[in-house]
């Protein structure tokens, strides 16, 4: 009777292994921590693996004893009334399973402490010539400022690849956390203090970033992108950002520019002009996503402007559906799409 029940248990093994198999994929390569593409994320990945291997070793020992116990020391039915020997314990064993784990933890602790310090290296005194980015988190968007270059942007973070880029992180409203899994671990953006870290993208590419601290209803949608480019491409981008023109090129766009100047500029800057309570839109036309989450289509831009809280619940942008008619929206979209710094 007892044995039968255990045989039932093994039936679930295939189910579990199927689940495990479908899950052993490493995830989206722009988002996952399991295919690291940064200096930091690689250090972190190696420590994850080291700790995992040590822990699997421990698990195997436990599983072995566990299996032996469950197979060998079962009570065989109600009639099995033998009273086992009432062992008090074993000092040698107690010492063994105290000392061995301590040794294993030492093996883990040394590289852990080394990496903890290595990841903080240079953040207090940034090396000469390195790119510095000030990250300011807002409900629910990201502001990126390059103080040395005199450039400000939002949502898409451009960095040079192949070198450490230093970040100063803070928040304007509530706590957020700045996380680009593929490039490196996260750091909170606090309201009262400035945090510092670096990321190093080893190759050019686009990586997804997330907010990792509950910050309100649209926390799940506070996505951004990191665009890592070769150094010269990055420098060219920064240069064109500085020279970016906010001049409309068509009549429709000119109408849109006027609407922008009346309705939007209080919160959104283009180039150096405009407010700072909403994302900077200097290179809006280059962005792949609207508000970090919607595909960049005219329809989506119009829908967003009409009713932003439909897409990011609880965000601070007012709805313009009653203030702008369709023609005005089209003009605005034409103007916004013209805001490009890349070819």
């Amino acid at each position, binding site marked *: 009777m*007892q044995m039968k029940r255990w045989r039932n248990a093994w039936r679930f093994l295939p189910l*579990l292994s199927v*689940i495990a198999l*479908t*899950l052993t994929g490493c*995830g*989206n390569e722009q*988002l996952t921590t*399991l295919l690291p593409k940064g200096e*930091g994320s690689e250090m*972190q990945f190696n*420590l994850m693996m080291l*700790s*995992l291997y*040590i*822990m*699997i070793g*421990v698990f195997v020992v*436990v*599983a072995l*004893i*566990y299996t*032996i*116990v*469950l197979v060998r*020391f*079962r*009570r065989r039915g109600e009639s099995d009334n033998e*009273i086992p*020997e*009432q*062992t008090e*314990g*074993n000092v040698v064993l107690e010492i063994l399973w105290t000392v061995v784990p301590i040794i294993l*933890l030492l093996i883990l*602790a040394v590289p*852990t*402490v080394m*990496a903890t*310090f290595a*990841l*903080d290296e240079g953040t207090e005194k940034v090396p000469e010539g390195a790119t510095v980015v000030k990250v300011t988190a807002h409900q629910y968007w990201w502001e990126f400022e390059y103080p040395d270059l005199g450039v400000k942007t939002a949502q898409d973070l451009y960095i040079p690849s192949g070198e450490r880029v230093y970040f100063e992180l803070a928040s304007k409203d*509530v706590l957020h*956390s700045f996380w680009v899994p593929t490039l490196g*671990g996260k*750091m*909170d953006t*606090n*309201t*009262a*203090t400035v945090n510092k870290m670096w990321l190093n993208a080893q190759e050019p590419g686009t990586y*997804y970033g*997330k907010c*990792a601290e*509950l910050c*309100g*209803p649209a926390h*799940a949608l506070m*996505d951004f992108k990191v665009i890592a480019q070769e150094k010269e491409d990055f420098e060219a981008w920064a240069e064109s950002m500085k020279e970016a023109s906010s001049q409309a090129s068509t009549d429709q766009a000119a109408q849109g520019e006027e609407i922008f100047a009346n309705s939007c500029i209080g919160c959104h800057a283009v180039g150096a002009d405009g407010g700072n309570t909403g994302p900077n839109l200097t290179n809006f036309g280059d962005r792949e996503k609207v508000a970090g989450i919607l595909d960049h289509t005219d329809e989506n831009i119009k829908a967003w402007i009409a009713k932003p809280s439909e897409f990011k*619940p609880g965000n601070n942008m007012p709805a313009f559906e009653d203030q702008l008619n369709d023609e005005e929206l089209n003009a605005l979209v034409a103007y916004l799409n013209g805001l490009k710094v890349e070819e």
Partner: protein
Amino acid sequence: MSAHAYKKKNPIWDWLTTVDHKKIGILYLASGAFFFLIGGLEAILLRVQLLYPEFNFVGAETFNQLLTMHGTTMIFLAAMPLIFGFMNAIIPLQIGARDVAFPFLNSLGFWLFSAGGILLNLGWFMGGAADAGWTGYAPLSTTSPGNGVDFYVLGLQVSGIGTLIGGINFLVTIINMRAPGMTFMRMPLFTWSSFITSGLILFAFPALTIGLALLMFDRLFGTQFFAAEAGGNPIIYEHLFWIFGHPEVYILVLPAFGMFSEIIATFARKRLFGYSAMVFATALIGFLGFMVWVHHMFTVGLGPIANSIFAVATMLIAVPTGVKIFNWLFTMWGGKVSFPTANLFAVGFIPSFVLGGMTGVMLSVPPADYQYHDSYFVVAHFHYVIVGGVVFGLFAGMYYWWPKIFGTVLNEVLGKLHFWLFFIGFHLTFFPMHFLGLMGMPRRVYTYLSGQSLDEANFAATIGAFLMGLATIIMVWNIIQTAVKGKKAGNDPWDGRTLEWAISSPAPEYNFAQTPLVRGLDAWWLEKRAGNKAMVPAEPLDDIHMPDASILPFLLSLGFFIASLAAIFANWAIAIGGLGVVALAMILRSVIDYHGYHIHKEDLPDEGGEGK
């Protein structure tokens, strides 16, 4: 007043005024189970929302309320009272006492807890529940619109006072009320671990009280403790919360460890292996539990020195925890292990909890934690620890002690179905979450975008949650069935080892007609092996002095409830009135003499209700 007259009281009045630890235990268990079902329902709704990418089931605002209330409810309103329920129902019996040290305070602790629990959940019906996470980090919590977070702050504050009172009561009870011969090193492990848990409550809850008080001042009275623009700093709140929050994990899991120690030994029919090592490991875990709170804050930016120190301290906790795991395994080694539902949960706990411990060590590595932190990896980890440890422990304890508490036995067939469905559902829900976190999914997100390889694991997790829900329905059915037509339990259905199995099921009002003499560890087992049918009494049969019932704990808690509810809506006249009720109850308690009453020895049943 005789015992006879006492029993004739109106049952509702009786439950409102009881100071009997066994009845208070049942009150705790029933309300804990009620909140467990609510918290579970909230979890199911969360998982349905995450069934598909960009799925719209409850929406963002409600999702944040659900995730906040799920965590808060499960920790403070389900796990805590269920543990207090078992402590109340079992510990006085295990140490051979007639009641706890302060029966009045015991009742007060329960009613304060339930006032706080109801208050917390009233948010749902009065404009929305709390939505800033169970951690309630400022400034999200201080700026959250509506009254939801006020319900959280005041509800937790009131129920926290109840918990603190309960903790102190059990410290005193275990130190002072042990039967003759029950030395500290003869105490059953459940009593030992509850003793250490009570000590942790004593030192940990004040930190939460302060954190919540500061939040309350910021929200209700316009102070700026956590407002950066006015020179405040929200990191202070994080420290206060986790100075409480980390020990809280051990407050929950240590009593569960104690239950496993008893259950595994009983069903292996063997003495607990390495008893003194187990006691020492428990104490060490409790001590180290206060040294590691910063591992919840590795990404806050406290710098590499703080992170390294707390990383090493955190790793150290793995050592005593490992000691416990091996001692449980070696308790079964050489034993005669049988597997009723109680032991299935205990044996199922071992691999589940070891997985949680493994990820715990992985999380203690700060650089790796920069990746895991606030991702689904952490969600997986703490559910492996809290469900795999605490909830499995509570289920094991329920099947094990049900006969002693209610005098009936839970159905074993339904019990085993409950275990297997729950066990499989649990792993199906939480195992994939490790991968979700590693693949870049932050926690506390109401949705995820398609095309980010997160779909399959989320789907699997939701199916697992349904299985756990089904298992819980079966458990509830089992409880209803047993309550209606349960099989009568004997005094000692499991061939138990500790004192509670030496008296009748359920225990009589006075527990022990004569205080027993304890002659070693596993006192009842020793007497049985020596051929005795009952414990040897340590005193002659005499009249038994019993404490008076009182309505004051209920009134006092009602006063706190009214005051808090009024404060949330800034109705200060009623709030002061509520505090007036509190003051009045305290004055009455101080000026009225309580003499208690006696159960006369002539009224006691033959044999004192002891033995088989």
